[in-house]
């Protein structure tokens, strides 16, 4: 096998992984702040793809811009979903029961969104036609699909923006404080419930934007969430549940693993590599590559 081929696979994997990374950051933020495993994350991504599509069809908005424009409405939607649904599930004070109940609630939400979208928008796959979807940048012998390259660059920019927000702004610091210790944060005058709403809103907005970027090169259909939700879980677990830089790296690694699996396994088995990595991480390092919090005895 030529070295160029290997580089090609690595490059493709990283490009795809950038978008996975953006999706996974949203999931990690929600888990880190709220301790909620959001099963419906993939469905919000799917809705983001559709919104980007409608922007493109009705206003001929370029999907790269459309992806950015999904952020405000999905932030509001996330806030509402948190206020109206998740904040109402308490589990009677037992954190494990609350986690289970919220996970099942979001599973229900996921079923409703997937199937309601099928009912309303029909299962027919849609696509956004762009000039760059079929073009490639050539770096010597290595070809980089243009749509994926742009999506990758945008994902990096958005991830960097989130990072700056979390580390440099007061609101971001309050958010991190609520994640570390909700009780202590509330003693400092931080409205933890509002922070949860904020985290859920941002998490949903990020995954919707990632969906918009994905829509530049991936077919849009109601059941698309199923292909990605598990990848997001894997990326987040890989990075350490709740760690945002971890989720970012996790997303890149998933893209790489998917791409490199093709070197040794047939196409249908592409995702087995991902799941094997997932199980290996769970068994041998459940706190993830970047996890701070070890499980207590």
């Amino acid at each position, binding site marked *: 096998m030529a070295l160029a081929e290997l580089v090609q696979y690595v490059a493709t994997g990283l490009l795809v992984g950038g978008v996975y990374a953006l999706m996974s950051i949203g999931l990690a933020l929600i888990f880190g702040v709220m301790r909620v495993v959001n099963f419906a994350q993939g469905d919000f991504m799917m809705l983001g793809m559709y919104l980007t599509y409608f922007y493109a069809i009705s206003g001929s908005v370029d999907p790269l811009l459309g992806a950015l424009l999904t952020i405000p409405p999905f932030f509001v939607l996330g806030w509402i979903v948190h206020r109206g649904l998740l904040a109402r599930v308490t589990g009677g004070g037992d954190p494990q029961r609350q986690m289970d109940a919220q*996970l099942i609630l979001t599973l229900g939400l996921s079923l409703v969104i997937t199937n309601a979208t099928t009912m309303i928008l029909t299962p027919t796959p849609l696509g956004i036609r762009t000039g760059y979807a079929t073009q490639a940048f050539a770096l010597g012998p290595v070809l980089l699909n243009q749509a994926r390259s742009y999506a990758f660059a945008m994902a990096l920019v958005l991830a960097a923006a989130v990072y700056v927000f979390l580390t440099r702004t007061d609101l971001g610091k309050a958010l991190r404080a609520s994640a570390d210790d909700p009780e202590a944060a509330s003693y400092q005058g931080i409205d933890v419930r509002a922070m949860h709403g904020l985290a859920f809103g941002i998490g949903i907005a990020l995954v919707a934007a990632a969906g918009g970027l994905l829509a530049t090169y991936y077919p849009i259909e109601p059941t698309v969430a199923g292909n990605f939700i598990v990848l997001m879980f894997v990326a987040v677990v890989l990075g350490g549940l709740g760690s945002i830089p971890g989720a970012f790296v996790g997303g890149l690694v998933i893209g790489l693993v998917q791409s490199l699996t093709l070197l040794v396994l047939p196409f249908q088995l592409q995702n087995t590599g991902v799941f094997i990595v997932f199980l290996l991480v769970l068994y041998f390092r459940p706190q993830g590559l970047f996890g701070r919090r070890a499980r207590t005895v």
Partner: protein
Amino acid sequence: MASRTRGWLAIAAVVATGLLLTFAVQERYHHRVLTLVFLWAAMGLAWNIISGYAGQISFGHQVFFGIGAYVTVLLVVKAGLTPWVGMVVAVGVAVLAAVLIGIPTFRLAGIYFGLATLAYPLIFRIVMDWLGYQEVAIPMKREQPGWFMQFNEPRSFDLLALGVLAATLALSRVIETSRLGYRLRAIRENEQAAEAMGVDGFRCKMAAYMLSAAPAAVVGAVYIHAILFIVTPEAVFGLLVISQTLVVSLVGGAGTLWGPLIGAALMVPVSEILDTTVGDRLPGIQGVVYGAALMLIMLYAPEGLYWRVRQAVRSRAGRGGEAARSVIVAPPADDAVASAPTQTVLLQARGVSKAFIGLQALSDVSFDVREREILGVIGPNGAGKTTLFNVLNGFLIPDRGEVRFLGQPVTGLRPSALCRRGVGRTFQVARTFPHLTVLENVMVGAFARDAAVSRARVAAMAALARMGLADRAEAFPGGLTTLELRLMELARCLATAPRLVLLDEPLAGLSADGIDVMIAMIRRVRAGGVTVVIIEHTMQALLRLADRLIVLDQGRRLAEGAPGQVTQDPGVIEAYLGKRWLARLAAR
């Protein structure tokens, strides 16, 4: 005994109702709905064994459903084997799969377990696609329809499905009323407390997982023959299978065999009717209904309908009926004299060291515990007292050093194994099984010695009586006072028939009267021939109680000896008691 017969009678009534419906119903479509109700109820019951009783929420239980379907059908296709035999093979494969999945996965706790279970059906889906089994149809066998489970009469499928349901109900009932059932519920409520009471968490969860894989495989096999006729990876390993399982179990209520039954009887007809009436115009209506049902139940009755209704009925019936509760008083110091410590060494700790990240919790701690003594372990906060207990009863493995019990090295044994050898313990903050009655809490301890439920109940009752709690047997831990909770923990620990008990601050949070009662009870424990090691902050109480004291400070053994001697030790007074004590002693 009466409740035992009642349980079986209720199951018989359910099966009789099922039979009645099967013969009352005429239309083919109604038969189909009936078959589906029976099968989904059985599938929910299968899931309930591991996720309801044991509380290990599995999001991948369709793995076994799919294995049942694929193995049975592939055996018909490839080997011409009848599904009646194929089903048995499929159960074997599913149970084997449960072992292979369980070994690594049960090392994970909580949310990690749930996430890991998600991956297995996805892997099976991919592998089945890759093996070329995207669509496997059941070959028609017109000559021997019955032999190949291809009945013309839809009623036959009803009866088959009802049989599967009846068997799963019976299995659930047997588990619920056996030692395993009590242990699984203890694991769900508090796995560490269960482990300390002699419950081997891993083995129990594995047993439950295997027992829940078997009916799921049978349901999968029957479902293919009765409903689908063609196996596809999506249809048997897909998310809709687990969603439907979760819906029937959670809407009805997990942790009881009636939950999935109620859930299936409600949800399956609703979704079927919607599917046939508006399903053409609105594909996906079933998914919307299931999803909405999951959301509504989590928002308004997360424990499920069965528990919600039961609670309502109980609180209506039990209003104002609170029995007068007797005040627990200290028992007379009857036999305290007959229980002097012997010189036999029961437990030896040698050079025990344990470090956590950046903290040496224990360094080079050595001491002996003699038979039938009361040994007090004192020391300021953070001295390493609880860490020492965690090492002694197996929750922690020391970095260096050795613990011997009855002359045998026990370092590295699980707490459950240590419990069975005779080391019991209580916790600093009482760890109860909140949804089990006081009696059932103590029975979990008694099961360490006796597998028979009736004998464990007698032993538990005796332990409760010894601690003065007999009239609280049917209460739930949530309704107990601090003193009663501590006594219940002590009774639960005694029910394991220990040689040695480790009591972690049993006097904390008690009133002066409560302390008197507790001290008398601890003396009574020792009078029964049990050795006691006790951690305490309150010096005065321990001076009254202990034969010997060990003082820990910053993970080191500072002093050891008779109480009077230790309290005279200037090092101890300086480091632990402070200068005020020194002044007070001087003034005497």
